[in-house]
């Protein structure tokens, strides 16, 4: 069946999804499978979202393996493939391995775009392309999204708008620099140049790696915050982007990583002068360069949502979200895709979710779609019963193999409710939903501890009292061993008996 070329005329829908990147497509897919009446709009001319433009130099930092000890179409394979969208139908699963260049483990931008196009086609996800969301207002119990084509009224809007708008802090003269999004990726563009990159996060290291490869003469990364090496150890950046940092610590000529505040940037003829202050030194450090690149981050294009009352964080760069990805201040305004990184979760030991990546937010989209289906239509999705004697083996198998738990550590959990001996599978949920809820039951998750060891953790609530049980790590991460079974038996016996 072909998808209508220009579907979803302006009108009234239960849900309007904005965006046709991985977040928008994944949300639209799950809403469709749940039968939620929705329209999907996109300013772009085709699917792909940010992958129509980024990353600039490099392949993605997330992996896709093309082989594993489980079938590509299985749920377990998702843990081997961080980049494909997820689906119920086998033919829609694991599409990235099919487009990946032989021998690669990280897709290029074009490969991601191709896999998303295939997903949209095969899943027959209808999108009204070339329809840009312009503004938002409330009209009674409806939100009204104005687009170039007209107005869309809805009970809930899901904005899967990415976080790809350039954001530049108010540093005098920094506007003279090129932002990451405007950097030219032309071979030889930076050969023999002196380059300063303002920033020390993913995009800064990506550009740094790119210009190092071009034969840059001098490269300096500067920002106030030191690189967080503890976090980098857990980051997919580590093996691929850190040449500039590595060369700096080994003392390579012309490779510097400065922890200093940028005071101002000036243009001197064809060159730049960057004034910096390191809090540990009395004297300012003045750098000269032929190019200054602001890798200062991105913001979500929230348009007029702040005027509507949507509370934001980081100077308006992201919305503040509930565990179900809804604005904390404006009901009905939801987000999908990498903006869901703004839903914090428990952040135990400072560990953030991976909701900024496909492997994290593809699961968030499934949770959001079910939440919308239930809250908008009042039809509760099935919670399958789990026989008491199957609870422990089921949770251990989930800890062993559930891709959601493996990807979204400490953020998503397998949740079972247990009311009067009736145990039900509540599905994969944000851990925060269970922990801050009231229902008796158990949530099983995998977490990093303070020493960055991966541990199974159970949260058990009985009689309204919540207990956290952090279990020992296993060197091969196999939790079907006797010790875990006994631990879970002990923890859950009182809950399952009542």
């Amino acid at each position, binding site marked *: 069946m072909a998808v209508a070329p220009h579907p979803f005329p302006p009108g009234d829908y239960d849900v309007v999804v904005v965006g046709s990147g991985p977040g928008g497509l994944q949300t639209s897919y799950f809403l469709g499978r749940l039968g939620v009446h929705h329209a999907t709009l996109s300013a772009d001319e085709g699917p792909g979202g940010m992958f129509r433009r980024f990353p600039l130099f490099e392949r993605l930092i997330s992996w896709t393996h093309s082989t594993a000890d489980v079938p590509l179409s299985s749920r377990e394979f998702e843990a081997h493939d961080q980049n494909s969208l997820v689906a119920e139908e086998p033919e829609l699963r694991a599409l990235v391995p099919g487009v990946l260049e032989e021998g690669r483990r990280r897709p290029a931008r074009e490969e991601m775009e191709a896999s998303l196009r295939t997903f949209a086609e095969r899943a027959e996800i209808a999108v009204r392309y070339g329809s840009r969301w312009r503004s938002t207002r409330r009209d009674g119990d409806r939100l009204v999204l104005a687009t170039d084509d007209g107005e869309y009224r809805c009970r809930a809007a899901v904005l899967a708008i990415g976080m790809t708008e350039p954001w530049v802090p108010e540093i005098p003269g920094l506007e003279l620099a090129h932002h990451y999004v405007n950097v030219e990726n032309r071979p030889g563009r930076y050969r023999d140049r002196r380059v300063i990159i303002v920033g020390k996060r993913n995009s800064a290291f990506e550009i740094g790696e790119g210009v190092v490869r071009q034969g840059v003469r001098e490269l300096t990364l500067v920002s106030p915050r030191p690189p967080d090496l503890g976090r980098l150890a857990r980051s997919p950046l580590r093996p691929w982007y850190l040449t500039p940092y590595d060369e700096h610590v080994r003392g390579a000529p012309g490779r510097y990583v400065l922890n200093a505040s940028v005071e101002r940037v000036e243009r001197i003829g064809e060159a730049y002068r960057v004034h910096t202050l390191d809090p540990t030194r009395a004297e300012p450090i003045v750098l000269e360069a032929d190019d200054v690149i602001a890798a200062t981050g991105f913001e979500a294009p929230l348009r007029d949502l702040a005027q509507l009352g949507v*509370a934001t964080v980081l100077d308006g760069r992201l919305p503040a979200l509930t565990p179900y990805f809804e604005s904390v201040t404006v009901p009905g305004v939801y987000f999908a895709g990498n903006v869901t990184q703004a839903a914090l979760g428990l952040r135990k030991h*400072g560990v953030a979710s991976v909701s900024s990546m496909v492997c994290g937010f593809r699961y968030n989209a499934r949770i959001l779609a079910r939440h919308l289906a239930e809250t908008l239509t009042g039809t509760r999705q099935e919670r399958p019963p789990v026989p008491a004697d199957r609870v422990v083996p089921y949770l251990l198998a989930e800890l062993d193999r559930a891709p959601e738990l493996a990807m979204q550590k400490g953020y998503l959990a397998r949740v079972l409710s247990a009311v009067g001996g009736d145990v039900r599978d509540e599905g994969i949920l944000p851990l925060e939903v269970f922990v*801050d809820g009231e229902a008796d039951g158990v949530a099983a998750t995998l977490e990093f501890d303070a020493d960055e060891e991966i541990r199974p953790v159970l949260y058990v609530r009985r009689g309204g009292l919540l207990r956290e049980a952090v279990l020992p790590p296993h060197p091969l991460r196999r939790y079907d061993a006797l010790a875990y079974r006994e631990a879970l038996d002990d923890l859950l016996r009182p809950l399952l008996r009542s």
Partner: protein
Amino acid sequence: MPDGIVDRLAQLTLFGDLRWPALEAVAHTFEEEVFGAGQRVLRQGISGGAFYVILEGEAVVVIDGEERSRLGRGDYFGEISALTGGVPVADIRAETLLRCLSLPGPQLEPFLLEHPNVMLRMLQAEARRLRDSNRWQ
């Protein structure tokens, strides 16, 4: 990081002795977190919590379901569990829209060692709390 945050930090007693660029370095070290009214920030009995400083809004301290006190701009919490390695003895719940800066628990000690003025301010505040609690008994 938000320039607005640097200005707001400068007004808080805890960071009162810091000047730019040290203040900016602090703003870059902490994360900003915003909670809606009713959301929990710190959870009684749950390990791995962070240290928080309130930039804006109000929170309540709840122990075993009972509200004990209120916190507002410039107040901070989570330092005791972060410094002792224990679990929080109270829930902290946002009462209004609550804007905080947070630092993961394990990073608080190195942060304080790097910023002795902040450590002194915190010690003074803890001493006042101890004095006040002794007075009540």
